[in-house]
């Protein structure tokens, strides 16, 4: 099954290798991995989607924690989080394309329905940009192909995820989440609530 982890890691050379190497060791395939800046200086945010057995999630999370460069790890389920992906699609739309002169207007229509944007118009092709859940993106691609459009290129970012509501990683919460505050370098005293060790048991129940 697919698992989605969000890891907050030090923005330092080699951090990505450490994370990637961990998945290689566990023999778990990474479906997608996005890395970028987070709300605080020096900390990158990774969204890692991987395919692993259900029971493997705890170990993956605990192993991610073990990396010295990891600040916090969260595992997200579908319902509790917003999960998005950005996709660029280049479609053939010249006079010689299957739909000939009609191509452009038809693609504009499809883009409208899927809330995709046209970001480039060239004599022979159109580039679409679409943001959304992976299933929406796959939907657009499928419709394009079924309508006999020639999809020339597809570039997908892989998923990014964020929990809904006010919830923030426990560690980050303790660190203080305001980006302008100086990020404390140590973990604060143990918080009162702790959902982690118990989860090993709860997941099973």
């Amino acid at each position, binding site marked *: 099954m697919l698992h989605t982890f969000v890891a907050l890691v030090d923005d330092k050379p080699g951090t990505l290798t450490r994370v990637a190497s961990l998945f290689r060791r566990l023999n778990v395939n990474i479906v997608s991995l996005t890395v970028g800046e987070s709300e605080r200086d020096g900390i990158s945010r990774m969204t890692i989607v991987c395919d692993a057995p259900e029971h493997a999630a705890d170990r993956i999370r605990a192993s991610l924690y073990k990396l010295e*460069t990891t600040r916090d790890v969260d595992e997200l389920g579908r319902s509790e989080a917003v999960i998005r992906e950005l996709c660029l699609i280049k479609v053939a739309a010249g006079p010689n394309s299957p739909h000939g002169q009609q191509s452009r207007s038809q693609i504009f229509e499809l883009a409208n329905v899927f809330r995709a944007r046209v970001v480039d118009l060239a004599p022979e092709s159109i580039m679409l940009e679409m943001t959304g859940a992976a299933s929406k993106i796959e939907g657009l691609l499928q419709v394009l192909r079924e309508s006999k459009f020639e999809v020339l290129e597809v570039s997908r970012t892989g998923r990014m995820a964020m929990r809904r509501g006010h919830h923030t990683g426990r560690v980050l919460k303790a660190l203080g989440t305001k980006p302008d505050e100086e990020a404390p370098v140590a973990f604060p005293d143990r918080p009162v609530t702790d959902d982690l060790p118990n989860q090993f048991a709860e997941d099973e129940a």
Partner: protein
Amino acid sequence: MATNNTHPILTGAEILWATLVGEGVTTVFGYPGGAILPAYDALRKFPIHHVLTRHEQGAAHMADGYARASGKVGVAIATSGPGATNLVTGIATAMLDSIPIVCISGQVSSKVLGSDAFQEIDITGITLPITKHNFVATRAEEIAPMIREAFQIAASGRPGPVLVDITKDAQQGTATFNFDEAAPASYRPHPMLRAESTEMARAIELMRASTKPVILAGHGIIHSGAEREVLAFAERYQIPVATTLLGLGAFPASHPLALGMMGMHGESWVNHAIQQADLLLAFGMRFDDRVTGNLASYAPNAKKIHIEIDPSEINKNVKVDVALIGDLKEVLNTMEPLIHDRNYLADASTTKTTRAWLREIRSLKGDAAVRDIINLPDNGHLYAAHVINDIWQEAKAAGRLDKTIIATDVGQHQMWEAQYFKHEDTRTLITSGGLGTMGFALPAAIGAKIARPDCDVWCIAGDGGFQMTASELSTIQQECLHINVAVINNGFLGMVRQWQEAFYDKNYACSPILSPDFVKLADAHGIPGAHVTERKDVTPTVAKARTSPTAFVINFSVEKEDGVYPMIAPGAALHEMVRRPNPLIETAEDE
């Protein structure tokens, strides 16, 4: 020395040594070369003793032995390229046994990094999966904070090896040195490392419901320094204690509650007790495949409480009922008043049932003692078990048991050591458990002797493994160390031979091994030695070695085709042990 206000401006090389001094380092083990030469050039200005080894693998094992014997962080140092790759086996050995060492490697200048320069190797890439963490310093000002953080990472949480790769230009450059400012953020356990009180309450309920509990005592007890707490816990609740190989010494072997070693070569009653238990309290151990046997049939009736500092170990091999994540000593100390509050001991039946359980375990011993080679009449043969038993007895008779450290190599002799040398005290057994690295014993013994000069240190090695790092005999002489070496010479890669006997139709492919005359080899190094072929000579020669003013090498010519028993075949359940043959194993010479 130029100064900037109150803090001196030093070269990177000087900063390296000054930081090590600040961390309390007095000895390092290493081998010089081009990329680390600036550091060696600066060494004479600092109060650090450098032990020149004969191979960088030896340097890493010495740092490891030093750490295991003392509990302090060991330090190894090597040049770039081949020097760094030679450290790899030693680093991996420390990784698998969670030993705190810091390895420092020289690196080519940062200007040519990545260009395949002479002796350039990506050692941080190579050691990524076998270090707890590693660093590359390319500027002088990075050295002090990286070394300080390396020490903290190596020693905190679940300990492990850390490598710091320092480019030549970083060693040659200059920076202001301020030890205090280079301090890493103080170590605080990760919020995940926290045993929940609700979980503790569940653990206590399981204890209360149990009539057949067993404590599984692991290496974590020693790392946590929880020996006293575990002893008190076991005594208070009268719970018998089975020990892993690396846990030997964490609980006194002669204690009435001590069962002995569990697992592949553990005594059968120990494994039977585990299989019949209704509660396992795993203290700082990780259910390695060598102690569980077949997982499907492992302790089927037992609830399991796992106290462990590394969350990734929970439910890895064995599904547990309660996980208490944290430092063992802290967890036990927090748990104690909770158990007390719950009136655990007020229940008189608790003590009565555990007494019945202890009786039951005793009955499991059956005829084990009769079969034990130690109790069989002398038949003129010299057995490795006798040799090790006699080394133990000699130390005990001399009142030196608490001051005797044994470093073993890997193989049959290692298992016999674990079975026949009864370790009463913590940190008295130094052995490569997780990686099983042949060649470990001699350099580890050197590290241990330097860490604990007050102790008698024995290197117990097989004829095979001893030849892997025997060049360190020269290091022993150079450092004038009194280390006793017992080579258990059976003419075979014995453990391999035993597996070939049991599982490969006695096809002894490449397991007979030729050795030099080890006494002559010692003599070539200026080290006295002796051959022992008969049991009567064992104790006197052992005593002679122990009381000798110098190192001493004894070559024990033991029974060639002897086997380590009991034994669990791979894939078999923990209770399906192959027992000791009775009477004595027949060897070719008997026929």
